[in-house]
Each structure stands twice: as C-alpha cells, then as structure tokens.
C-alpha cells in the first residue's frame, strides 16, 4: 500500500516523545467479573503494540476502555498526556477497526469511508475525494459504490481500515482484525498492516490471541492473563526471556522443568524453561545417557518444517523438542523408545516462583 492519500506522515514522526497512551491502575468490573485488573501500561507514540492473551483475558475490554465505549471502574486513561477517562468516544482522538468491521449496511463504500469526515463537517466534494483516495490505497478503488454486503471478508476489513484511517487518528485500535480471514489472506494482511503502520507512523494497538501474529508484527507486546498484564517487552524479550510460566507457555510451546531438576543440574531451586527448538535430542547410546537427561518418547508430530518429539522424563515432567527437517533425523526416534535430552546453559530461562 502506498501512502499517497495520507500525507501527514512527517507530522507524525515529529510527534512529542511522550507516551501516546498511558493507563494507570485501570480496572473494569462487570458485576462479579473483573475483566481488567489494575493495569499499568505506557504505549509509545508511533509504535506497533500488540495485546496478546487467551480468550477472556481482558484485551477487548482494555481496547474498549481506550476507545471510550466503556468507562473504567477505577484508574486513569491518558491520551497524549491528557486525562480522557470520562470523555465520550467522539471526543477522543483514537479510532477503532472492529472485529465484525461494523460497516454501515445502508451506505456505499465511499459513504462509509467518508462518514468520519462528514460528521466533522468536511465539504462533500473534499470528503468524497479523500474517501476515494483511501479506498484506492486499500485496493478497493473500483468498488466505490458497492454496498458492504457485496464484499468478501477481506475486502470489508480493508474498508474498515480505510474508514478508520481517513480521519487521521493519533492511535488506531484493532481488535483481532484478521481473526475472520483464512490463513493465506491473514499472512498477507499482516505484512500490509505492518507496512501501513510504518508508513503512517500512527500508533497501532493490535489485539490478538495468536502469538505468532504478535511476534512477527509488533514493536512491543503486552501479554494479558486474567485481566492483568503479565509481561511487556519486545518480541525477543517475550519469547527468549519469559518472566513466568504463563508467558513461557502461552508464547510458543515451552518446556518448563521443575525446581528439583534446577537444583540437581545447576544448584538453584527455581523452575526454568527451555524452548523446544533449543533442545538437542539424540537416540540413547548403548553406553548410557552421558551428559544428558534420559527421556521416553511418547509422540512424534510431523509439522512440515520440523518434527516435534514429545516425551516424559523419569520424574514425569513432559518435554518437547523440535527437530528441523534439514537435520533429517526424525526417523531416528520411535514412540516408546528412549532418547537423550540436552541443551546449552545459555538457553536456560529461570522462572520466578509462581505466586
């Protein structure tokens, strides 16, 4: 996508360095359920920030609090340093791409996209021009007079994007925007969204439950669990140094070894994790495990690019290793057979004790 229709890029780049959004002690309760539990978060201006977490972890509620569709039970929401906690959605300089796209069914595409300009009192000729450009930008320039009902899911998604971006918000909120698309389209849209965000320099807050999506697209990720933020960091930090068993397990499968193993191997009583692709696995040599841990293979899963080997340690802990196809060794293992597990010391991530 080109940025011809949105020439405000340079203005964005010189935006103040303060956080675009600051959440302080933000909580939201619905009757008995606490959907968001005193969240503190700073989202930098111009960054691609993902909120990652399982279904029901409060991501959507945080997004709706930022947009103004819900009012917080407690806490403060700051946009560009200004407290907007009590403001209505139409008084906040953020826009949303809804999960169900929420296109107006009685309007053509161009009317949909021009809507935000229309309610701002932009003259008809100007707003149609800008809406047409925005639709052009998302490759729907030839569908201006169609109705949303005549489009595919992917096309509707682009219209929703154009409609939100044409009013040039400071922050764009996206709630699982790719959730309804098939894999191929999804991957293509991931690339396009990321490129668009970099061109426009707008802060994107992207909600997803797909860890791969979050890892590939984001500048930073906040991992949500039960209404709280478990960890905030770059994709590398989140993936390589999870700060607890929840993040280690949710962001990619991970092996979590018990404190007893930590004590016997490293003299430290804490649990630790090792990523499956960092584990070396070899068949048990006749002379015994040597410098490794014996394991019994329980399952082999062919993944295409690799073979996943699952097994159990003598103490009952399950472990997963990933053997790349290039290594060509998947055939050396068989269910029920023993194997030897090892890893490098620097791939060990110590987990704080679970509270």
């Amino acid at each position, binding site marked *: 996508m080109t940025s011809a229709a949105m020439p405000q890029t340079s203005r964005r780049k010189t935006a103040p360095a303060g956080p675009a959004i600051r959440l302080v002690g933000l909580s939201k309760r619905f009757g008995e359920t606490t959907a968001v539990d005193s969240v503190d978060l700073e989202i930098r201006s111009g960054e691609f920030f993902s909120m990652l977490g399982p279904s029901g972890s409060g991501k959507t509620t945080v997004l709706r609090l930022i*947009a*103004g569709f819900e009012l917080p039970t407690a806490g403060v929401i700051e946009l560009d340093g200004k407290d907007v906690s009590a403001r209505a*959605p*139409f008084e906040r300089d953020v826009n949303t791409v809804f999960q*169900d796209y929420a296109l*107006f069914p009685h309007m053509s595409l161009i009317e949909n996209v021009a*809507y935000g300009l229309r309610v701002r009192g932009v003259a008809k000729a100007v707003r149609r021009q800008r809406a047409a450009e925005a639709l052009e930008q998302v490759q729907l320039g030839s569908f201006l007079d169609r109705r949303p009902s005549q489009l595919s899911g992917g096309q509707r998604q682009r219209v929703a994007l154009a409609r939100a971006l044409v009013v040039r918000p400071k922050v764009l909120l996206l709630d699982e925007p790719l959730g309804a698309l098939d894999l191929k389209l999804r991957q293509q849209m991931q690339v396009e969204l990321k490129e668009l965000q970099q061109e426009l320099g707008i802060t994107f807050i992207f909600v997803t439950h797909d860890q791969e999506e979050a890892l590939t697209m984001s500048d930073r990720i906040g991992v949500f669990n039960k209404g709280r933020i478990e960890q905030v960091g770059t994709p590398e930090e989140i993936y390589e140094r999870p700060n607890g068993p929840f993040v280690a397990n949710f962001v990619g499968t991970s092996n979590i070894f018990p404190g007893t193993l930590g004590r016997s191997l490293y003299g430290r009583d804490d649990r630790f994790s090792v990523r499956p692709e960092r584990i070396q696995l070899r068949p048990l040599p006749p002379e015994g495990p040597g410098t490794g841990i014996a394991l019994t293979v329980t399952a082999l899963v062919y993944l295409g690019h690799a073979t996943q080997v699952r097994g159990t340690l003598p103490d009952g802990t399950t472990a997963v290793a990933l053997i790349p196809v290039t290594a060509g060794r998947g055939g050396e293992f068989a269910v029920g057979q023993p194997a030897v597990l090892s890893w490098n010391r620097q791939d060990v991530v110590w987990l704080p004790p679970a509270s």
Partner: protein
Amino acid sequence: MSVDIRPADAAPGRPSRQALSALLYRRGRLRLAGLLTAPAAWLILVYIAALSALLITALWTVDTFTGKVSTTWTLDNLIQVTTDPVYQTIALRTLRIAVLVTVVDMVLALPIAFFIAKVASPRWRGVLVVAILMPLWASYLVKAYAWRNVLAEGGLLEWLGISSPGYSEAAVVIALSYIWLPYMILPIHAGFERVPDSLLEASSDLGAKPLATLRLVILPILVPSIIAGTIFTFALTLGDYITAQIVGGTTQMLGTVVYANVGAANNLPLASAVALIPIAVIMAYLLIVRRTGALNNL
C-alpha cells in the same frame, strides 16, 4: 443454475417416498407450488374476492321502496362519496386523525423502542416487551371506555382540575394513539434489535455526536420498520368507528359512516363506496413509500 443432482442409487427402505422427495428436490418449481397453493388460494378467496365484492357492491343501488339491494349498475355512489362536501369533510377529518395518531405514535414509540432494545438490561427487556404487549390483551372496548372516563366532561381529567378535551376530535386522537401504540413500538423495536451495537459505537468512534448517529445511522436503518409501524397505525385508524363513537361524541369518521349505512340507513352500496376511500388512501400511501425508495435498503 440447473445443476442436476441425483442420488447415485436410492437407499433401500421406502422407495416411493424417496422418489417423491427426490423429485421435489430436483424440481424447485414443483416444490414451490406444493408449498404455496393452499395459502395462495386462501389469499385469493379472502382478500381479492372480498375486495372485488366491495367494489361491485359499491356500483349497485338500493331500491328506495323495498330497501333491497338492486343490481343495477351505477356510478352514483362513488360520485356522491367523492363530491358531496359532507363526505369530503369526513374523509379529510379521518385522514387528519390518522396522520396525527401516526405522528404521535411515532414520536412516542421511537424513544420507548430505543430504550427497550439498547438501554435496558436483558432482564428488563423481556419485562418491558411484555408490558408493551399487555394492553393488547385487554378488550378494545374496555380501553375506549376507560379513555372516555378520563377525557369526558366530568371525567378524571376535570376532576384533577385539568381542562379536558371532552367529546371531540382531540379525544379520538388521544384514545387511538394509546390503543395503536403497541403496533408502532413492536416493529420499531424489532428494527432496533437488528442494529448491532457496534454500528452505534463505530459512528461515535468516527466522531459523530448522538444526534448525528441518530440521523445518519439509526433512522436510515429503521426506515422500513417505521414504515411498517405507520402502515399499522394509519390503516387501523382509517378503519376505526368504535373509539370515534365512544370518545368522539358527534365526531364522524369514515368508519362511523360505513357503520351507519350498513345498519341504520340500510344502504350497503353507499357503505361500500365509503369503505373504498381508506383502501384508496392506503394504496396511495404505499405507492408513495415505494416511489421515495424508502424500502430500497431492505
């Protein structure tokens, strides 16, 4: 498309019934005919036949001596009904009452339906819908007489020290607005239910204040539902004769004229001619609605 889908081989069991099912499956028109014949026959009998009978009767006369309907063809009834100032006045008054009732109901129903569909909690929603339906369970006559007790001279309003409209056109409008209100609320409520909350949120998100959302998003989507409601209240008011008699005093409506001519005056042809007026008005209304394209978004 005429893709011919045939089962490779019929399963054992009931071959004849399966053959029939398969035949109906392949022949869409046959299936449609089977489904629609009975209701269509009913429709023709009740609707078209009754309407034609009305039209034909309107072209007959009454023998002034015997008081029997004589089947001599004449346009006299139609001419009298359309040119006689008495009938013109009554027709205009009926139309005015119908329009007023429709407008009053629309103004009342929109916020009520909005509240039920979008503001009330799910638990209250059910209670409120039942509350809206409840007056429909009470007899029409009871409601009309209740309004007479409120509005008439010496009624509840005067007793409360408020000036009352007495037996008048205003009283008819008030009573009919009350009686037909559920018929306006229900379709509009159904219409609101079909507007997802996310559309209202999207509108607000894009910068629209509540009134702009109402004007640009809610009302356009609701137009078909509102029109459905207005057809109810408008048509029901045009045909009313009971409320007009109970709370209207001497206020004559088309319905009361029909009633009088069928009964006391024993002039069925004239009654038929008068009855054709509301039918013509409703048809004109539907035509206008079609013309403005208000139903194109359905």
